[in-house]
């Protein structure tokens, strides 16, 4: 198993599994609300032209997260997408 890393460092096309959230308070609730609970697979779909907000597929829906927010999400495993 790899070292834990942050969602913000996930590259396009990669899928990671959520290990936990570093955020507290309302941001934490918001991230939980969009489905980032432990064990959830998150796939990075694409980055915006300037690289900052990136689009992630979480539980079947696409969300754009800013880096400051995606840095609060800790992942612990990476799964290379077999198809595509």
């Amino acid at each position, binding site marked *: 198993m790899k070292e834990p890393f942050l969602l913000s460092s996930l590259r396009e096309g990669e899928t990671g599994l959520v290990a936990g959230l570093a955020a507290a308070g309302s941001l934490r609730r918001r991230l939980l609300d969009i489905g980032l*609970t432990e064990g959830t697979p998150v796939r990075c*779909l694409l980055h915006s032209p300037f690289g900052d907000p990136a689009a992630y597929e979480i539980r079947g*829906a696409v969300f754009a997260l800013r880096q400051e927010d995606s840095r609060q999400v800790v992942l612990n495993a990476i799964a290379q997408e077999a198809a595509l």
Partner: protein
Amino acid sequence: MTAGRVIALAGNPNVGKSTLFNRLTGLHQHTGNWPGKTVENARGRCTFAGQEYLLVDLPGTYSLLAHSAEEETARDFLCFGHPDACIVVCDATCLERSLNLALQVREISPRTIICVNLMDEAAKKGVHIHRQVLENTLGIPVVTVSARDGRGIEKLLETVEKVCTEPEKGPLPLPVPEEARRAVGVIEPVLRQQGASLPQWASLRLLEGDTSLKNTIKEQWKIGGTLLDRTLILAQKELEKSGLTSETLTDRTVASLAKGAEEISRKACKNKGRSRVSQQLDRILTGKWTGIPVMLLLLAGIFWITIAGANIPSQWLWEGFSWLGEAMSAGLIAIGAPPWLEQVLVMGIWRVLSWVVSVMLPPMAVFFPLFTLLEDLGYLPRVAFTLDHCFQKAGACGKQALTMCMGFGCNAVGVTGCRIIDSPRERLVAAITNSFVPCNGRFPPPLKGRFLSHQKGKKKDRYIKYSGP
């Protein structure tokens, strides 16, 4: 007091809740393709089989646990507003997410109906929903609809009628986590004694540290503040003994909801995944080199169509109004009105009015439908996504690009649209700076003036451009 049954309409943002509401009530509340359109409860009436229903459109929320104003409004109405039934509108294209809220509503509303909307879009995306499986797993009625073309609406109303006339099933609470059981055991009897309707659910929320709910409970259920506070402190101690804190208990609740939703959707929903075409399109629309040129071209195209296309009806309107004005002044002179009156009425009031209408109405009538088209195609969120970084540098939010574009049509609409921005500071920035976007009544005078005077070839028309706002 109420003539009809009260039906609450809950759902995530952007699941077509407002479209369904409009379908049911015929009341045209503007709907938008982004979160947070409904901040206050919109109400509308609808009649089915001789029974009148009062529909309350709750703000779109992902959950009833978090502490945003929208979520509190929705939760308070469901808990303390005593609706006769609640329809939870779900998105067929991502059922799992919608089910999270559905499970929470099911916990507190004794008569819940699941309405899976956007079935047409789901079919396009290759998502299949087994209605019967969903209904059996959830234990509450499920109706599938496509609110946009009205399919399934009749069935939904039939179900609402059936649910309202049958004896209520009662809320279906989720199991209490093992470790929290003792703590809940401290609060629950106290709440029950005071006649609270959802003692177990409320106990858990209080243990999670929901202060806004605590205050509402004190008001609504007439529970003495000191009694409640003291019980809560005891219960918190009990909770800590079991090795939990408010924070970890919240995490558990959220995780168990997510898990529940995941399981149900796995049973009831077959998904083929996102289509390749839409993925490729996204790459172009938000790509590193293509995103911004495509956006500029599209927006330039819209402005060109708006300005060029609006000139023709503008001219017709202006000619029509001028003809009417001349007829009026001829009429006034014929009945012997003094010249100053004719000047005030026709050259003053009438002319200004006709200028404003003929300059402002046609561009709006062209611009807003075009903008709506982009919205329906889902392009606008992608613009926000592309531009967010630039706006971030200025301490603003990418969604401001949309409200600014709306501002080109009308600043009032642009400012109202700012509610789509979540962060209060960014929302304020967007609202204040919106007035710097020249709306179509204030397009740069050289540009617009030339268009108009070129079209009409009349000497006075150059002044038309100064009619604002």
